[in-house]
């Protein structure tokens, strides 16, 4: 009876820090911002937090795949779907929800497939590929839509009122959770964890490492498309300039959620908790009257919480074996790779 509970607890140990953080923040929010817990308060919260939650979920499988794979291009990629949606699609008269969803998910998948091809076939390291992608899309977005503007399809901009909790945004979020839950039940997910934890072992065990990496990016692409839809619904128009902020916030949420950038450890539930924690920090800090410095307070708190949660996860993870494992996993490829590279030519 006890054994499965313990093993489940140990498997999800990375969730301890973000869950505690969210619990503390919820308690503070209950005192400071009671209106958050009303129907419309929650509806607004879901609306505002959804793009970040989905963006953080989107970069999770890529981080799980290892090789220091953090997708810097996530912000501009969401921006790209956002601006093309309000310019190209609307000017073509394509406004049917199904068509818009299909376009967003397809565009997200195509972008992620391109990144995966660069990483898998050209063998460019993930961080450089996504850095180049960040710069390319950042520019392309500004060329397509030089300044914020454009109008989202009516049904989508109606989301922005956020009047009911059980609206379409919550539906999209639940769909994303179901999708992720299904993904974690597949053998593919187990392979992804193995590839991320130790690519050499996975390769020698006969796992098609490249296919797994591609699949991780495609899952990311679907979630990216959903994030872009929610972002468009939230702002009701197109905004090419949000890439930088969204990328940094999504990475912060990912790391707050206990997913290791070294690969193999973590999951989307952590990223969701991380994104919720970031939203709650923002809400709680807004309830204090900091005046001109409130924006800076939020930024500073994000930074401090990020560093503290990383340090805490180090302490928590060090319990039995696990921490030592992850430390050696994160070191070994780094030292081994250049060594081989130096000998090869």
């Amino acid at each position, binding site marked *: 009876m006890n054994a499965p509970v313990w093993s489940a607890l140990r498997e999800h140990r990375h969730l301890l820090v973000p869950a505690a953080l969210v619990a503390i923040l919820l308690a503070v929010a209950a005192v400071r911002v009671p209106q958050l817990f009303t129907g419309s308060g929650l509806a607004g919260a879901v609306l505002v937090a959804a793009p970040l939650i989905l963006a953080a979920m989107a970069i999770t499988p890529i981080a799980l795949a290892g*090789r220091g794979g*953090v997708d*810097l291009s996530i912000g501009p990629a969401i921006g790209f779907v956002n601006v093309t949606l309000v310019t190209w699609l609307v000017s073509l008269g394509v406004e049917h929800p199904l068509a818009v969803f299909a376009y967003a998910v397809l565009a997200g998948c195509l972008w992620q497939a391109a990144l995966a091809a660069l990483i898998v076939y*050209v*063998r*460019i*390291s993930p*961080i*450089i*590929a996504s*850095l*180049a992608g*960040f*710069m*390319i*899309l*950042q*520019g*392309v977005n*500004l*060329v397509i839509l030089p300044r914020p503007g454009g109008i989202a399809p009516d049904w989508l901009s109606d989301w922005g009122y956020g009047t009911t909790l059980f609206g379409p945004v919550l539906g999209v979020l639940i769909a994303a959770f179901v999708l992720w839950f299904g993904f974690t039940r597949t053998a593919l997910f187990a392979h992804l964890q193995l590839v991320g934890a130790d*690519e*050499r072992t996975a*390769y*020698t065990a006969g796992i098609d*490492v490249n296919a797994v990496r591609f699949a991780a990016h495609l899952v990311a692409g679907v979630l990216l498309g959903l994030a872009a839809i929610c972002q468009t619904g939230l702002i009701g128009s197109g905004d090419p300039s949000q890439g*930088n902020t969204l990328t940094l916030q999504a*990475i*912060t949420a990912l*790391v707050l959620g206990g997913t*290791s*950038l070294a690969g193999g450890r973590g999951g989307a539930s952590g990223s969701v908790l991380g994104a919720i924690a970031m939203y709650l920090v923002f809400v709680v800090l807004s309830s204090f009257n900091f005046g001109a*410095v409130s*924006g*800076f307070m*939020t*930024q*500073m*708190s*994000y*930074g401090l*919480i*990020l*560093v503290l949660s*990383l*340090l805490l996860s*180090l302490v928590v993870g060090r319990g039995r074996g696990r921490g030592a494992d992850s430390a050696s996993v*994160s*070191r070994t*490829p*780094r*030292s081994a*790779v*250049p*060594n*081989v*590279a*130096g000998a*090869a*030519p």
Partner: protein
Amino acid sequence: MKAFGPGSRSRRAILLPERRGVLLGALLLLTLCAAGTVLVEGFASANNLRSVLLLAAFLGLAALGQTAVALVGALDLSIPFVIGASNILLAWLFATELPALVCIGLIALLGAAIGALNAVLGYRLQGQSLIVTLGVGFAVVGAAQIFTTLGSEYSGTVFSQVPAWFANLASISGRTFGLPLPPLVLIWALVACSAIFVINRTRRGREIHAIGGNRAAAARLSISEFRVWLSVHVLSGLMAAFTGMLLLGFSGGGFVGVGDAYLFTTVAAVVVGGTSLLGGHGGYGATVIGVLVLQVLTSLLVGLGLDYAAQQTVFGLLILPMVALYARTPHVRTQI
């Protein structure tokens, strides 16, 4: 060991990935200069050359720290935030009664301290150290803005009088010993020469390559991983602080967003030059070429009438083939 040593004249040595990178970068730089001279009127003028060199000096100083950190296989994402924070803090300090040199010294100390903080916090978390630096950067820039905003109605911008000699250092109209070239360009050249010498020729510098190349082997050679890790991060914080201060001399007014452009451009300069982000390969000479390539390319694109957005795209498109040519990750089957 000898064939790959720093002083090697071996024919194979020129084919090392980092040498190939430098060679390709130099070729690209020459091509860009030639293209600029032909395509853009006034490209080869003294005025344009001066502004390219000056902007390259800022990027080059900021990218020195990034290069050192990349050589041990990490990235420092706190650089733009330290640049912004030191920029407004120096402006704020200039408004007090303190002597200018004391102000500069204080900010330099602060930069080094932030670098040390990055190193200490990130040491046990090396796979994720870029996130540690990002978090420290957020905290630093937030704190700096709160500090300078208290008791002022302008947020994010600080007004004060910059000493004339300091402004002369880094402004476009600055003069070096009567020559119409900002002293900063000369300073950068000196810093670059000494950095290349230290990294390539001294024991301490080679230790950086050793740690980045193979930590286990470096440990057997009694090289302290922590000391190297600490020194590259302190260097990075210090250089970012100097860049931020010099940018105040350039612009004349403190602005916290001044560092934002350096978040990814320092990484791009390191990568285009040919330093591997996996650690162990490359050096500051490569980054100098990377910096010059980026700045000459910017100048060329501006001359051709492309705006900032299009420049970003071109930068991104440039990184991919450069990396594909000389910094590919080895296939997993070669690592077993």
